[in-house]
Structure formats: C-alpha cells, structure tokens
C-alpha cells in the first residue's frame, strides 16, 4: 500500500467518492472479471440471451427447462463482467501552469486523474498515464496492481508543465497504442484548434475507447478580468504581449466564444463525455458529479 503523502490525493475526497463506482459507458474488454460489461458472454448472474445449441458447446450449459418446453436445445448465456483500462491523458504543456489561488490547471488535472486512478484501482481496473506535451515525454502503460498505481502517482508527482502542448499527437498515439478498449480520461485546457481535437476524438471513438474530457479553464481566462495594461507572458514559450485589456476585451471575448463554440461542436460530433471545469470548483464535487452521471440508471447488482 502506498503510504506516501501525495498533494494531488485528498483522503477525504477519496473516502467520499469511494461509494461511487466508476462505470464505463461502453463495453470493455478486460483480462479479468470486473464491474464493467464485456462484449463477450460470461459467467455472471446477469442473463444475456438464449442461443441455439451448436456442436461443440458444453452440454452442461444446456437449459433443460427450455428443452422441456420447446423440445429444442438452447444454451443459456450470461453477461460477462470485466475490468477496464483507465488511461489518464494529462496535458503538461506550459499553459497548464496557469491557475489561481495556488492551484494550477495542471494541479487540478493531476487530482482528477489521480483520484479516478485510485478509484479504478480500488475496483480492480488497470490504470495507465500519458503526459501530453511536445515530444510526448512520459507514458505509463495500464496495469492493475497496487505497485503500478504507486508508479503512476510517482510519475504524476514528477510532472512539470513545460513547452507547447502535444495533446493532439498524444491522443492520436494513445488511440493507436492502446489496442483494447479503454476509458481515456483527458485533463487539459484544450488550447488546440477544435478541428484537430475533433480528429483526435473521432480517432479514439473509432478505436472504441470511452473518452472523458475534463476541459480545465480558469475564471480569468473565461472572463478576462484585467483592467490595467498588462504584459502577458506566454507560458508555452511564445512572445510576450503588452496590451490594454479594455481595448481588446471585446475581441478577446469574441475569440473565446468562437473557440468554445468550436469545442462544443467537436464534442457533439464525436460524442465524447465532455466536462468544462472551472478550476475554482472543488475537484471532489466535479468527480462526484462525474461518477454519478456515469452510473447506469438501472442497477445491475
């Protein structure tokens, strides 16, 4: 058990969330039994369907009652429960350094991914991590043992925001490299062109991954609440800009609106599970809302 203190893990939050299981919205193809539906028939107690007996089937699975009623051989099949692979994709570009009240977007993203990883690990799911920065530096494959989770946390702890974003390349790479269906949890400010993001989402969707997007934004970025001349230093290393906020506020808001509309269109077209988050909001509430939203309406157990 990992006893090391992690800044991005809050036991109180984890305790509160522990009663909320993490479900995938799509069928997963895990290696072991778990909480998630599988496209294959399995040995759970959840009835799936009757299927005609074919040569080669185990005669022990014949439903004799059905034979008695219909004089035909049927095999009774049950749902298979399996585990999932949770791949956290964390944007580690320079822009994720921005934040307020001592909490950057990167810190917030770490908390989201770490908490979900912990919850997934607790229910037997595999957890992996990919850091999306220029060059795609760190990639931790999904595994389900506790030692691996510690490895993931260590990696998260070591991540520093730097450079331009490599989110688009990272997502395409994840889509290609993660062969089995997985729950892809993206924590990023998504400062990339929406059309490129749409390509990424459709790529992941084509690979039958369940994509969750936490779009992390800070209030100042949304409302541009500056009122005096300010020199803006590009956290991703670009040129700085000295502007009079009152002069460009209207254009800034127009550009932001255009961007948000583009993002909305991308997530709508790709049907990803999109959550726009103000990082001033407690991440525990965000996760609770997220987990509740993914809980199936009809309980299976």
């Amino acid at each position, binding site marked *: 058990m990992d006893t090391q203190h992690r800044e991005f893990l809050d036991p109180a939050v984890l305790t509160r969330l522990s009663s909320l299981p993490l479900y995938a919205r799509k069928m997963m193809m895990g290696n072991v039994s778990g909480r998630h539906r599988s496209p294959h028939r399995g040995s759970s107690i959840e009835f799936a369907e009757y299927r005609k007996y074919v040569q080669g089937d185990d005669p022990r699975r014949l439903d004799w009652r059905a034979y008695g009623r219909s004089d035909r051989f049927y095999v009774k099949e049950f749902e298979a429960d399996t585990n999932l692979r949770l791949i956290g994709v964390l944007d580690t570009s320079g822009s994720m350094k921005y934040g307020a009240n001592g909490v950057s977007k990167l810190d917030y993203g770490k908390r989201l991914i770490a908490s979900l990883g912990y919850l997934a690990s607790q229910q037997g799911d595999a957890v992996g991590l990919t850091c999306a920065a220029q060059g795609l530096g760190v990639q931790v494959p999904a595994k389900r043992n506790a030692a691996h989770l510690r490895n993931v946390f260590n990696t998260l702890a070591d991540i520093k925001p730097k450079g331009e974003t490599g989110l688009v390349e990272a997502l395409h790479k994840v889509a290609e490299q993660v062969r089995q269906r997985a729950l892809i949890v993206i924590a990023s400010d998504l400062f990339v062109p929406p059309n490129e993001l749409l390509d990424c989402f459709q790529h992941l969707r084509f690979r039958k991954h369940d994509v969750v997007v936490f779009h992390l*934004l800070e209030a100042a970025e949304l409302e541009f609440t500056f009122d005096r001349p*300010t*020199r*803006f230093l590009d956290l991703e290393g670009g040129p700085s800009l000295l502007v*009079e906020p009152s002069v460009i506020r209207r254009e800034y808001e127009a550009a932001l609106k255009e961007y948000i509309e583009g993002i909305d269109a991308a997530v709508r077209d790709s049907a990803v599970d999109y959550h726009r988050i103000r990082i001033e909001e407690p991440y525990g509430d965000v996760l609770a809302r997220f987990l509740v939203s993914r809980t199936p309406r009809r309980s299976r157990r």
Partner: protein
Amino acid sequence: MTFLQPWLLWSLPLALIPLVIHLINLRRHRTVEWGAMQFLLQATRHNRGKTRLRHFLIMLARILGVAGLLFAISRPMSGRWFSWFGDQPDTIILLLDRSASMAQQDMQTNESKRSLAVEQIATALERTGEPPNLVLIESTRNTPQTLQSAASLREIPETRATDADANLPAMMQSALDYIVSNQAGRTDIWICSDTQSGDWNSEGGQWAAIRAGFQELKQPVQFHLLAYSQSAADNASIRISELRREAGSDTDRLVMDIQIRRSQAEGSVKLPVGIVVDGARTVIDVEMQGESFALDDQFVPIDKQKEFGWGKVELPPDVNPRDSVFYFTYGNDILKRTVVVSDQPGSAWALKLAAAPPVEKSTAEATIIRPDEVGSIEWNETSLIMWQAALPFAETAKKLEEFVNSGGQIVFFPPQDDSTESFQGVKWGDWEKLNLGPDEQAVKDWRDDSGLLAHADNGSPLPVNRIVVNDFRKLAGSGQVLAHLQTGDALLQRIPTDHGGVYFCATLPQQPFSNLAQAGIAYFVMVQRALADGAERLLESQFGLIGDQLVDEDAPAWQRIDGWEEGTLSSEQRFIAGIYQEGDRLLARNRPPAEDNPGTLTSSELERLFGGLNYRIVQDQVEGASSLVSEIWQAFVLLLLIALIVEAALCLPDVRTKKVVTP
C-alpha cells in the same frame, strides 16, 4: 482670435495630460504569465478597425476636453478684426469717415454707420486692451489727434456726425506722415468708411504715392477697413441747384430749382417736399419715378420789404436724415461787380461800358483801377475782372489764380506796352495789323455751340462776323480758341481751368484796334456772359457748401439758428449743415453734392487701392448687431461638454451578451 489671458495659453501642453497618463499607465503595466495566448493574439489581430478608432476618439475627446477648458479660461475673443493670436500693436490709428453719407442709419435702432463704427471700435479696444498709442484722424480736419482712452471715442465731438465730405487719400497721407514723424512702431490703421466713391477719389493720382510711402516704411503697418458699403434701399436726398429772387408788384417771390435723388430707380414714390421760408412751411407732393427728379421754378412768395432771410427744403426723415434737408439764404439781387484793371483811360472806359451799362437800377457795377491798386479788390464780392495791362506776376498772379479757383472770371485784353510775363502758360506776342481784302471778314470762324460766343437762347447766332479788327496782338500758349481771325490767329481764347474762367481777347474794343465797342453786340454779350458766370459763385453762397471758405467761418460770432444739434459746438459748426447768423449776415451751410452720390467702391477697386499693402477688409452693415469682437469662451465650454459627452458615450461598457462560457 485673441485672448484676454494669453499667458494661460502656455498651459496648453496640459491638454496632453490624458495622453501622458495613458503612456504612464502603459509603462506601469503588470506582468502575468498567461496560457490562453491564442485568444489574445487573435484579439490583437482583430483590434485594428473600429475598436482602435474608438479608443483613438476617446483619447482625442479627452485631449480636446482639457484643451477646451484651457482655452475657455484664457478668455478667447472672436473678432473680425483680429487674426489668430494677433499681437497688440504699438499704435492704432483710426481713420474715421464723418461724411454726411455715414449718417445712414438703421431705422429700428437709429444707429448710424458712423456711430456704429465708433461704438464697435471703442468696444473692441476696451475688450482687447487699450493700445499704448491711440490716434484719431477724422475726415473734417485730417489732423492726428491722440486719445487717452478708447472710451473717449464715444464722447469727443470729433467723432460726431457732420455734413462735410471726406478725403480719404488726405487722411491716409496724414496717417503716413504721423507714422514717419512719430516713429510709431508697429501700427494698425483702422479705417471706418462707407467707401463712397467721391470721398475715396480712387482715380486720384495720390494713391500711388501713398501706397509707395507705406511700402517704404520699416515698421509693419496693418490696414483694417471696416466698410459699410451697403447702400440704403429707400433713401432720398434733396438740394437746390438754383435760387433767385424775383420782384413782383405786391410781393417778391423766391424761385428755386429743386433736385431730388433717390437710391433706387424702380417704381414710383410720393414724396412731400417741404419748403420752409422764414418759418412758414409749404408742402408740395411730388410723385417721383426713376432715380432723380427736378422740380424747376418752384416759387414761394416773400415779403417785399424783407431784405434777407433764410429757408430750407426738406423731405420726410428717412434712413439718412442728413441728406433730406437743404438750407438756403436769400437777400436782394446780387450786385454783379466788375473790376477793370487798366492804366489807359480809353480802353478802360470801353471795357467798363460793356460790363456795367449806365442804366437805372442796374444790378451791375464796374470799377476802374490801376494795376498797382489790385490790393484793393474785394475778391469775395467781385464777379469779373477785365485786365488790360501787363500780365500779372508774383503775388498778384497768385491772387488772381485764387480768384479764378473760387469761380471768378478774368478776361485779359492786350496791353499796348510790352508784356513779357505769362499767366496760366499764355503770354502776349507782338502787335500785328490785320490786312484784309474789301469783302473779307475779320473773324474766320468761332465756337457757336458753347462758350462766350455761343448762340443766343432762341438759337440766333451772334453777329460775330460783323466784328472788324484792325490791330491785334498774337497769343503765345495753348488754350481753347473760341474765335479765329482770318490769319488763323486767335481772337478769343479760353484757358482750361477747374473752376472759373480765364479768357484772352487779342484786340482792344475801341478804335483804331477794332469796332467791338461801337458795333459789337457780340462783344457786349461776351462780357455779360463772363460776368454772369462770375456772379454764380456769389449766388451759390446763398446755399453755401461745407468746405467752400466764403467767409471767416471759424469766427465764433456765427450762431446757429437752424440745423443739426452738433452745430451748437463752435468748433464743429462749420462742418454742420444749418443756418448761421452773425449780426445781419446769414450763412447757409450744406453738404457737398458728392455726398448725395450713392456710388461706392467695388471690391476690386479697394483691392487696387490697397494693392501691395497688408490689409483686411471687413464688410459690415448698419443693421448688423454683431460686434467686431466678443468673448467666445462659451463656445469652448461647449466644446468641453461635447468632448466629455463623446468620451462618456465611447467609454460606455458594452451591453453584455449572454455569457460566453458556462462551465
């Protein structure tokens, strides 16, 4: 435009305070590490059109607002006289046209062109600050007069109305002389005039010299012409062109030719012409069409026993009351005096006989004097001088020229002695015999259309062809020949003069020189016509014109008995129309005829007169109430308010549309 507090304009750079604050604000920026640079870059790319213009306008409005405030507290003056930021000159010379035509007034306010000009100049000077040296040159005296303050312009008699004319070239020359003699420094010359053609004499040769004089000055001179060129639409003037007393059986009567002139030719108008003689008023209604109207031979009966008196003709008061009245005096018939200057009794007698025929109750009188007695001539009472002696020179010649210039007539007859002097460019040559054939006439041709030998009133020619000339004296010098002898020499020659008349007759009237005295009707008519012409100047004194020095008008003994109020001042009365009396003598003063002429100089004529000089022309009108100069700080306060309103409107926050992002 000028300012009452010009030193406050040094604070004008304070108008840049908004810009400086903006720049300081930019320099005091804070630095923020920022992630969403893509939106900033996009915003700054788009921030080039309306938004940049909007913020530029905001900055401009703020600067204009501060500038407007600074201008307002500097107390700006707007004036048609003043150029932007004009400096105060060292000397201001005011040339004031006080002629009768400047009395044209606004019927609503009774403000005349002259009084309006004085008021406007005084107000402008008071508002802009008194100049170090203020000099007035008014049109009656043409002499510079230093004033203590601009306010005195309203009070001194030298700015009040007169009935005189004006001589603008002389006033300009006087201003030039003042500047030269007083080293006046930077000078502004303000001319207030109605630009009446007669007063300006734009064709006079002195303008070129005046322009050259001002151009040669070292100090800068700026001319400002406040021109009231607008003629009155419904002005009428009246004057008497001829006045005579005719004796009757019971009463005498005054017969007068009245001329009425009005400023517009269209339509007809009924005018009641009032004739006042010795206080008794008669009114004649006249229906007038066209610009001018002559009312000839109007008579008014007068008491036969009354030797002299006075009167006036008048029209109802109109926009220029000064030209609506004309004064006259009357007396007994004028005695036409002739002085024969000769030291040869034979010739003198023949000359005297033609000038004053020995008849009972004759109105002509002739006196024979020797050439050395010329000093005894009563010049003001003499109409004709018949000079049969050596031509005058020196002081005598000068006296005779003054006599001619005042309208007198001189006829020179050849002296029998040698004469080497000349008069008006003409001198006597040698005596010659005129040898003619048996049927030849002495006079070859003569001017019968005008002059002393013209046809009689009934068209009958004078019997000039019956004149017999035996001896004549040649004339050397140019002139208009009225009669030629058969030899081609002049028998009678006129010397051109502006006033009066100078004639040379080449022979003597008695035998053996000619038969003029014995059989010369033409000779008699010739002399009488010259005498009548010379007597006109005395007749004119019945309605004397201001400027014609007929009597010692400056004598304080002359008391006004009728006329304008200004005539009560002894220093001004010789420029004021009216009737004046000294003992038994009456004197009428009237405006000069040129003042009835409504013609004014055109803009091109004014430009020609001031060509090469630094001048500005401000056209004003007597109905105009606008001041030459006025404080206009209100306009700048208005500018300040507009700038603030515009700035506030541009700074209004945008109406927030629906929130862009909902988390």
